[in-house]
């Protein structure tokens, strides 16, 4: 008879489900917000890139997850990736020096041997960790920190010694051109099937290990309470050995595949910071750094979520994916841990901004909001807003500060919700208001600036006339003025007689508008200024509508 167990957690309340929904939401958001709609127009390339990066991240994130579930931590991932890449490439070079130098095929025997030995060395590294932790008695943090620092240096030394011996000159990297080796990570055919299948197979095996076997149950017990696990008759030291070996093995595998993908083994740059990405993926995927909690599917989804967010941000703001990668990973980890903690157990609502630290934190977050808006604002809402980044930053900072002030108060939840709604309305009204008054303010500011120079802004027959004749205005000044003058939509005439403006200044004026068609200026008077005939000629070629007296 099966007992109806009401204490099981339904799927839709599990961490994995929340991750799935989040991944879907981020994908949809990216598709919509990305101006080029890359996910639709180039869906094949996008999905190959995304799946390849996710697969490689997942590979070593799974290793990190096993160690974290067992109550440890492996900080050596990045260096093991670099070390194994170095070893694999060096072995191939030693076995087939000419083929490597000429980028000709090295043959399957060489490849298989190199990979097998590298993976075995990965297991040796894991065993070293296990020995340092269980026998020497070092904390996992220290043991793996040691190899993190040490292995990278060792890989470089090996690389230089080997290239010196074989190629006659010490090099810091080895290029691998062998096509069948590179195809292991899909670099030749430009696909990611190999990697995706590999990760799914590894994931499935680890999932079975952790959730279906005695060993897996013991790993969870070890992470949950090491002393109790030992007293329950579990060989905790052997389990740690297994966990650290799995982690180092998977990092080595990833290291080999990275060499294939990049066609070069470079111990100095490869795998830098990967250990933190791996831990982040595991934590976002629901693993608890206290140990005993976490799943393999969760970790896979955690890796996917990280990559999807990094990719999405890169697509939306059109920068290289790595620029904001660290920031995204950091923020996501903090949120993931906060979120899982608070949903687990909190009886009383937490006060986030109390006391002196609260004030400093508010300052902190206000500054952060301002800086983020200044950096990203123009990219996110480009073309839909006229304010410059400084104004956007100011509004974002004030908005963040006022929101935190509302949260800081002792009001009840309902009152806070009302205030929050009020805040949102006020924010929208203020932003729109500022955005509408912004051009006017800029126009009047430019007027008074020109007046103080002794010039004049007046309404001519068909538009605005800027008269700076006889003033001390030079190239730098006009360049500055143009930042504000551009908010006159019908700026038709410039009078710049007897000024020190040169060709450069002229360029500055006309470069304010992106195309010739946008430029409203049709009359220009530069007689007596430092502008040369050549400059004028060039201008007239580019802007044929402009007339000079």
């Amino acid at each position: 008879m099966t007992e109806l167990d009401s204490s099981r957690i339904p799927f839709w309340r599990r961490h994995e489900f929340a991750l799935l929904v989040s991944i879907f939401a981020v994908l949809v958001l990216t598709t919509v917000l990305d101006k080029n709609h890359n996910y639709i127009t180039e869906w094949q390339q996008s999905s190959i890139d995304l799946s390849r990066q996710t697969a490689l991240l997942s590979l070593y994130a799974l290793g990190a997850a096993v160690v974290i579930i067992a109550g440890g931590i492996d900080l050596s991932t990045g260096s093991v990736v670099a070390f194994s890449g170095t070893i694999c490439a060096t072995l191939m070079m030693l076995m087939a020096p000419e083929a490597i130098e000429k980028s000709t095929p090295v043959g399957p025997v060489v490849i298989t041997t190199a990979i097998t030995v590298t993976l075995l060395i990965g297991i040796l590294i894991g065993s070293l960790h296990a020995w340092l932790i269980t026998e020497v008695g070092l904390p996992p943090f220290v043991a793996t920190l040691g190899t993190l620092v040490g292995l990278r240096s060792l890989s470089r030394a090996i690389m230089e010694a080997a290239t010196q011996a074989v190629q006659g000159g010490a090099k810091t990297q080895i290029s691998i051109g062998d096509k069948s080796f590179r195809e292991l990570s899909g670099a030749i055919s430009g696909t990611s099937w190999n990697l995706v299948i590999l990760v799914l197979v590894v994931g499935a095996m680890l999932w079975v290990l952790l959730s279906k076997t005695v060993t897996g149950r013991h790993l969870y017990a070890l992470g949950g309470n090491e002393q109790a696990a030992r007293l329950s008759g579990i060989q905790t030291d052997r389990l740690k050995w297994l966990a650290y070996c799995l982690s180092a093995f998977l990092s080595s595998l990833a290291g080999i595949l990275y060499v294939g993908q990049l066609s070069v083994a470079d111990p100095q740059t490869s795998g830098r910071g990967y250990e933190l990405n791996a831990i982040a993926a595991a934590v976002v995927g629901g693993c608890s750094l206290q140990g005993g909690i976490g799943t393999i599917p969760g970790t896979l989804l955690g890796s996917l979520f990280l990559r999807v967010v990094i990719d999405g941000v890169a697509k939306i703001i059109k920068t290289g994916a790595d620029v904001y990668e660290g920031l995204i990973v950091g923020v996501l980890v903090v949120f993931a841990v906060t979120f899982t903690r608070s949903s687990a157990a909190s009886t009383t609502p937490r006060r986030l901004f109390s006391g002196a630290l609260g004030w400093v934190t508010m300052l902190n977050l206000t500054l952060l909001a301002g800086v983020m808006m200044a950096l990203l604002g123009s990219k996110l809402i480009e073309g839909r807003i006229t304010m410059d980044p400084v104004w956007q930053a100011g509004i974002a900072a004030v908005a963040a500060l006022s929101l935190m002030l509302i949260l800081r108060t002792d009001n009840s939840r309902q009152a806070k919700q009302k205030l929050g709604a009020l805040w949102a309305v006020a924010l929208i009204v203020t932003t729109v208001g500022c955005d509408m008054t912004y051009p006017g303010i800029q126009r009047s500011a430019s007027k008074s600036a020109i007046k103080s120079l002794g010039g004049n802004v007046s309404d001519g027959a068909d538009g605005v006339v800027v008269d700076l004749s006889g003033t001390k205005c030079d190239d730098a000044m006009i360049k500055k003025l143009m930042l504000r003058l551009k908010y006159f939509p019908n700026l038709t005439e410039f009078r710049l007689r007897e000024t020190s403006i040169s060709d450069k200044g002229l360029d500055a004026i006309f470069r304010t508008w992106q195309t010739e068609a946008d430029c409203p200026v049709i009359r220009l008077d530069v007689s007596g200024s430092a502008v040369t005939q050549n400059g004028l000629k060039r201008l007239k070629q580019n802007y044929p509508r402009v007339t000079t007296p």
Partner: protein
Amino acid sequence: MSETVLPLIRFEGVTKRFHAVTALENVSFDVQPGEFLALCGENGAGKSTLMKILSGVITDYEGQIVVGGQTLKLTGTRDAEECGISIIHQELNLVGDLSVAANIFLGRELRNSFGLLDDRQMEQEASALFEPLECHIDPRQAVRTLRIGDQQLVEIAKALNSEHRIKSRSAGSAGQLSPILIMDEPTSALTESEVERLFRIITRLRQRGVTIIYISHKMDEVFQNADRITVLRDGKVVKTLDRPATTPREITGLMVGRDIGESHFGAGREPGAVVLNVQNLSLPWRGHVRQWRLKDIQFSVRQGEVVGFAGLMGAGRTELLECLYGASPESPMGTIELNGSPVKFDHPEEALHSGIAMVTEDRKRFGLFTTMNVREHITLSSLDQTSRAGMISAARENAAAGESIKSLQVKTAGSSAPITSLSGGNQQKCIIARALRTEPKLLLLDDPTRGIDVGAKAEIYHLIDDLCRNGLAIILTSSELPELIAVCDRILVLCEGRITGEFHRGKFTEQDLMEAATASSLVS
């Protein structure tokens, strides 16, 4: 009863809810100045929650507390100390790596004229605090290295220190309130002599006008000291009684809501063949004056026999069980024979395979996996039985867990319920089930009833009796002598690592056991 004395503390309709669970419901009663009020109730009755409210640990609750005629408004434990209320928690609140003096002055450190810590002064004052407590604890010693009983005295000294401070501050001001000391099950980790010492200290404190609220479910302690007894059950006040007008039996009856007799087990049990035979077992203790944690231990245990080990804290009870279970930090000397053949274990796994299982002391630290559920707890040590080629069979595991839940009457919402959702007694049953599922021939129980309520204790005594009648050999240790006397066939007394007495059923009295347990300290 004199109506003229104004109550020192008056609880008026205090209610506290944790989400759906009501921990306290409309609790109202008075505490008179200078009295010893015992607060009794099973675990989960709300005693600790109530005292956490009084000491400022919990600040959001309904109803009000009037202290000395003024409504108490606390925002934290610091506030409570300002009002003269200190609490000694069941789980001690000390920083293990700091010195005794640093712990006593934690949060109100003394400074010298440079504004730096004045360790010398703090150590002197700490010593002065220990003087009336009849103990000689070095204030510079790290708290971690003290025995639990001494650690508790550090807590008391800490409380006295804050009381002392209030007195010196408000010296001369009229109408000063009596300081209030709350003790939450202070004797649960103490040996008999430490308990006696604690009671002498309490008497002295009362002479100095300290009001004491004492939480306990040990009737002898309560009846030895209390002026009045308030019984809580399911978050409500059942009754407040004057001590002379009641009996332990009535109080325990009120606590559990039913009448439980003081039962003795073991009548008519017949020990069988020898299961365990220990010869000259010694465990060295490097760098200690005693040199031996255990010295020349000899005893045997038979099938269907419960052998108890009595002894003070530090006498070596836990160390002895760890030696038998292969869990001691270094291997013991001497021979251990299991069913006639000598054994030597380096790891608990080997002991389990040979048929020795152990339920460890300190459930939270050595027994419980807070991340796991009930089923995983029960089957953890016996997964080999429910798996094939290393793969766990979910159906067989479920069946095994279900069987244990049923036979041990574990109260749980289901086998997948988190272990943390169970009461202490039921958690302990799961841990016992884990040991039993390995089908041991010898079961080691190290203080299995510590910190669990009266009802669950009785169930565990019954369980021990049943197991024993089914032929299991059991070794039991306990810090409560009456427990050993009720359950055991034979009691061996340990004192400073040596066996100093052996008593058989029907011939043991608390007096004799106590004398044996303190024997060598009397000699030296």
